[in-house]
């Protein structure tokens, strides 16, 4: 599975804090004074523009129920307001509708956004994968055509990468695109396409030269999924219904002007996008933190979320979780989570100067997904037979959700590049071990 299932992301991302603003398009450093005035500016803009339903309730406030008509309306409004300011993509150039902010300004923006208990809206395949690649490698016309739409989330994008015979070996893909006039005619099939049934457009890898060595005949092209000849069928997973689809192409026509970069040179673009994807998968959940900011508090932090889940099922003995083997494993998982979170922070600091994601993204992707699988297994053991339900009576909703989540987590180490592939990347790119 190539793509990322957005719905499942929280299973392995919610405890990670990836420094989202690595600053791909940083500008000159502003002086401290102008930063402070920017902060005031942002603060009053937020106070005026961020609807209450989009924030965490303050003490004593009643939260608006999620998904209420008011909240849905407000969410649209919040997105629109942010997009108009370019705040959905704060560091992108203003000329295409981005925020045009410097690293420091973006940091201030995110701090203030967190301080009012909200997040910047609009995170999507467009903003985090296709957009950065277009800005780096698209031509001027393509940027003007697509970047504003991405900033406003006007199009939902699907990622046409994996094929039935090309999973880990992505470059083995067989979907053909032949040039006919000013169009390409596409035939073949993609699998593991997240949300294709709800997407508008696809960025897609196609083979434009079947005779070249496999990496040299691939192009990167965009087209409308509503085009004639596109068939989309959802895939059922071992955990139940999913956002994944298989997509079939029969003489689908894409405009040649929407081919990104050079013809047959799409592999480099594909890889670049994958780096952004890994960064996103391993690092999601940044942005809005709890109210109160990041200052170290004078009370000890609590690391016992797994223990709290396990306790009602396992019970206590002498004030300790009664199953000692489980307690030991569970604690190791909590500890590893702490260490991984700190590592994303440390590596984030260390690569701050660098542009774009580095190869350690492979480490984070691999470790975070394996850690989540471990976490799910331990919680399954903790919940015991209550973790073994599928549907119907006898199980609480959160127990059934756990079961599905446990099963779904098995895909984490396959989608977005298998753990094996990530380990190969680390060995080669980071450690420099020979092929």
């Amino acid at each position, binding site marked *: 599975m190539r793509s990322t299932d957005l719905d499942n992301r929280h299973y392995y991302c919610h405890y990670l804090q990836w420094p989202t603003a690595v600053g791909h398009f940083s500008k000159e450093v502003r002086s401290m004074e102008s930063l402070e005035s920017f902060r005031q500016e942002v603060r009053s803009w937020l106070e005026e523009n961020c609807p209450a339903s989009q924030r965490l309730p303050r003490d004593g406030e009643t939260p608006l129920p999620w998904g209420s008509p008011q909240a849905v309306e407000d969410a649209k409004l919040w997105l629109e307001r942010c997009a108009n300011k370019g705040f959905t993509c704060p560091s992108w150039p203003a000329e295409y509708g981005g925020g045009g902010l410097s690293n420091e300004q973006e940091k201030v923006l995110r701090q203030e956004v967190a301080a009012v208990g909200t997040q910047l809206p609009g995170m999507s395949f467009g903003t985090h994968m296709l957009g950065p690649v277009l800005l780096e490698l698209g031509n001027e016309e393509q940027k003007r055509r697509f970047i504003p739409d991405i900033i406003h989330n006007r199009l939902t994008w699907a990622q046409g990468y994996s094929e039935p015979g090309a999973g880990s070996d992505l470059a*083995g893909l067989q979907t053909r695109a032949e040039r006919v006039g000013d169009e390409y005619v596409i035939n073949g099939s993609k699998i593991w396409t997240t949300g294709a049934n709800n997407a508008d457009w696809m960025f897609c890898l196609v083979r434009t030269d079947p005779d070249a060595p496999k990496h040299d005949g691939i192009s990167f092209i965009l087209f409308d999924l509503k085009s004639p000849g596109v068939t989309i069928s959802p895939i059922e997973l*071992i955990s139940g219904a999913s956002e994944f689809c298989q997509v079939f192409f029969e003489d689908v026509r894409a405009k040649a002007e929407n081919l990104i970069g050079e013809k047959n040179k799409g592999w480099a673009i594909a890889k670049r996008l994958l780096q952004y994807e890994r960064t996103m998968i391993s690092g999601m959940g940044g942005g809005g933190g709890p109210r109160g900011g990041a200052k170290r508090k004078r009370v000890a932090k609590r690391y016992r979320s797994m223990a709290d889940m396990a306790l009602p099922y396992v019970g206590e003995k002498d004030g300790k979780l009664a199953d000692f*083997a*489980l307690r030991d494993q569970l604690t190791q998982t909590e500890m590893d989570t702490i260490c991984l979170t700190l590592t994303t922070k440390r590596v984030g600091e260390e690569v701050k100067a660098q542009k774009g994601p580095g190869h350690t993204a492979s480490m984070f992707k691999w470790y975070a997904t394996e850690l989540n699988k471990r976490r799910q297994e331990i919680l*399954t*053991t903790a919940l015991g*037979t209550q973790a073994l*339900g599928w*549907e119907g009576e*006898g199980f609480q909703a959160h127990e059934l959700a756990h079961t599905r989540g446990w099963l779904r987590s098995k895909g984490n180490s396959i989608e977005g590049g298998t753990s094996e592939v990530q380990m190969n990347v680390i060995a080669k790119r980071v450690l420099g071990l020979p092929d």
Partner: protein
Amino acid sequence: MALALTEEQKILQSTAREFISANAPVAHLRGLRDSRDATGFSRDLWKEMAKLGWVGLTFDEASGGSDLGYAELAVLFEECGRTLAPTPFLSSAVLGAECVRRGAAEPLRAQILSGVAQGETLLALALDERAHFAPYVIETKAEKSGEGYVLTGEKGFVLDGHVADRLVVVARTSGAAGDRDGVGLFLVDRLAKGVTVSRTGMVDSRNAARVRLDRAPAEAVLGEVGGGADVLDAALDRGTAVLCAEILGLATEAFEQTVEYLKTREQFGVKIGTFQALKHRASVMFAELELARSIVRETMNAIDEDGPDVPALVSVAKARCSDVGSLVSREMLQMHGGIGMTDEADIGFYLKRARVAELTFGDASYHRDRFATLQGY
């Protein structure tokens, strides 16, 4: 006794493999699941198996059985494990039947057992009251009422409880939850008043139920009143042993399919079985499975000799098989890649069944603890 299969056992094995792969491949379980079959297994198939003499394989001849051993029964369970065949074998012919065989007086004993052997009568053991296996943690009450007893309490994870004709209910006449003393086994008609059974939909598409007892009358006491733990322990050890055989079959099949996939699937222009990291992981699985096979055989021999090592060996077997089933089913999925995540492939069925079996009758750490306790440390 030998650990290698005898010629007779090999014949039984190949007969069973042929029959089960023809009549109960994984597609059989899938079909029952997809059609939301109310029984959850095929009664016809079960009667066929009874006719083959398999259901009563270990029963004495007076009870319509074949008087063979657990070494033979394990061969059948292994084969059922290979295709994940859903049958009431464990619930009726092992757990329930062992309780009846050891605890019921004649003529009830022979009457029930021959019903079971013929595939007519179905039994179920109503034991669990917690999410974790803890056989003496029993709060269900058995109270004297006239000549007999009435039972009150609630049971979960009762295997095949939704279709059992009779339930063997574990209930307490004295003592507190956790005490071994004071636990008794009571035979209860599922249709008796005060008995409410509701099926629970399990992740492995097998059959389990919740049983609520509200002053439900017992037809008979199995074993001593308040001293049922001896019978219960013996039945559970044997149930756990055959479950180990099932996991062994499941894991062996999962492993063989995975090795086959490594030999055929191509990525990067080569078979993925050429990758050394996968080779080494396959070698690990091979060794762990070989060790599992040996302990399963030894455990069956000990049961058939009724040796004093049965509880310890059962714990070794269950700890190992729990771990091996888990290892192999997870590796099966990971090594198959994306296809393994689809419901269309059978791989998820193996993963799900392995996880349920892992937690049934205590997981690996439960049995390591039990083994150490048995060894006195």
